[in-house]
């Protein structure tokens, strides 16, 4: 089951890089985070594991809600035009994921499929940040990469210490809050969340 959920998570990451509308992208991310939470429940074999799974499921609900509030506060007249079409972006994400599958050596987990999916998610997250101009999509790229890290962490034998898991989630919450503040400020300054307009600093 965990292999299937890891594949679903990777497929949903492709969704984030392909879709145009911000609400749809947040929905896709919520589904991905939910898949991660279910996978954590499936793998949990001790009390701390269930606590981590519960927190991940909570994140799957709370984070999309926060992001939805953000897009309500930063309305866009129309979606930001992407420099590359959805098929081109999907092809780029597919290439990145393929590279992860081919090039990732064994990481010690003993589950190559999960290892490949986790590394591919981190790389696709980075690809989303690079390929998408709207500030919200760049933020979603960070969360996709973070979900990839959580996938690897919950799949570790016995799970990663819940102290580390909680710390990482707290840091993610902190970063997303600061990023949301930036998104609001940039939107109020530019009238849009298009980061292409933030290109004044050059040498």
């Amino acid at each position, binding site marked *: 089951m965990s292999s299937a959920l890891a594949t679903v998570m990777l497929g949903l990451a492709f969704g984030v890089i392909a879709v145009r509308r911000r609400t749809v992208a947040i929905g896709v991310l919520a589904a991905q985070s939910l898949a991660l939470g279910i996978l954590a429940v499936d793998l949990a074999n001790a009390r701390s594991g269930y606590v981590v799974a519960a927190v991940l499921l909570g994140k799957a609900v709370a984070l999309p809600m926060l992001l939805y509030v953000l897009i309500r506060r930063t309305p866009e007249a129309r979606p930001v035009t992407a420099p590359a079409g959805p098929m081109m972006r999907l092809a780029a994400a597919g290439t990145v994921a393929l590279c992860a599958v081919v090039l990732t*050596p*064994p*990481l*010690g*987990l003993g589950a190559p499929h999960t290892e490949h999916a986790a*590394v591919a998610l*981190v790389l696709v*997250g*980075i690809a989303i*940040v690079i390929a998408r101009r709207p*500030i919200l999509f*760049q933020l979603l790229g*960070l969360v996709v*990469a*973070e979900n990839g*890290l959580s996938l*690897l*962490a919950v799949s*570790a*034998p*016995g*799970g*990663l*210490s819940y*102290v*580390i898991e909680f*710390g*990482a989630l*707290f*840091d993610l919450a*902190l*970063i997303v*809050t*600061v*990023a949301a*503040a*930036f998104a609001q*400020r*940039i939107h109020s*300054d*530019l009238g849009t969340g298009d*980061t292409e307009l*933030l*290109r*004044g*600093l050059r*040498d």
Partner: protein
Amino acid sequence: MTSFVPLLAAVVPALPLAGMVLALLVRTQRQSDALAVVTAFVTAVAGLVLAGIALARGGEPALRGQWYLIDGASGVLLAVIVVVGLCSALLSPTYLRTSGRSWTTAARSRSLYYAALFMFWGALLAVPIAGNLAAVWLIVEATTAASALLVAFSGRRDALEAGWKYLLLTTLGLSVAFLGIIVLAIGQANAGHHNVQALDWYALQATAHSMPAQPTLIAFVLLLAGLATKIGWAPVHNWLPDAHSEAPAPISALLSAALLPSVLLIAWRVKEILQPSVGAGTTRAVFIAFGLTSMIVAIPFLWRSLPFKRLLAYSSLEHMGIIALGIGFGTPLAIAGVVLHVAGHALAKALGFYATLPLLRIQPNAATHAPVAVLNDSPATATAMGVSLIALSGLPPSPLFLSELLILLGGLAAGDLLISAIAVVAMALGFLGLLHALMEGVIGDEARRRRRRRSREEQPIIALTAILGTGMLACGVVGVLLLPGSDFVATLARGVL
């Protein structure tokens, strides 16, 4: 005194965090400034006591507890973070007087500024004393959140761009580093070590010999590549010149003088713990490669007529490269140079950034253009800039002249003749670039100089020039007389644990 260490290790980072909470509660600008001064002095006293204890132990084994590790390197970094943090906090009211409102009302802006400053300072103070790799990663991530807000504090479009770029790139970099930590944790779990203590520096060092080579090598590469983003090593330094140039001057000083070397200490510790499994040749090569690349990439920018803060940012790139090179050489002479370089660079760079406060008042277009003959307008500001540039360029009697010499001699002692030769050329070219900035931007044309009365607003920079300049000279003397051949350096050369 060592019995107080556990308490001090908890109190030192906690004091600024308490200041952060109080900063959000106070109502007037006057109360905010007073709180900042009190918090800064109390933190500085506690921090210097802890740094003093660590440094006074010389070559004795590190002090460690469940969550802390205090060795000689911790002592040096703590002292640097305390001094630069204190100066930045004391200079902040001067900056805020002229900054006006930023993201919100002026009074609220001031509270938010101090809250973010103290959160940033508290997290920075925790970095060199954290005894666990995962914990230190979490703390570094927290520094990103606080300092990104500070970088964009002015609310100008360029500052927003710099802050957003900094937040995005360093978070992605730290995600890559976290991937490395998870790979290490999986290795520890496979060996039966499941709890968070499995990622203590000492636990990792104890099990490094038995770790499988390939996953450990992957973890090392991921950790170094991720941390390099935060350190600002080339080629992953893109955020550095933007963030340093757009942040308020007191924050730029903390970013350059304290944050970069603190994260570099983590990279150094990672090198030490994983070296037995990865191999000394590989770890040395990675550090030397990052070092030389950073030094070479910085040169063309040091030769250009850039705004002063941007020039200082590229100088940070060069100096982080020099420190990486010294750690890569790893000989006692090179490590003595590294210790002296961290301290000397911090004082010189902080003074340079502080000098931009009066500079932007007398030459407002210096925010976007290279300064021109500052000596004509303000001898005090020109002196501060000159002292900073002379020190950073490595002109005698700068402590950086001595530290660079020690690092190069260390390289020769390690048998790295070609690398040392390339480093000499890179240092010389960097020196010429900064010398040009000194001649054109600071000294200028003597015939056009005019006499003017000293302004009251120049008093802070005069005092800081005297204090930090004396500190640099003291560093140089102490560095040459005490460091080479000392037990302190010999212990660090054996490993920063």
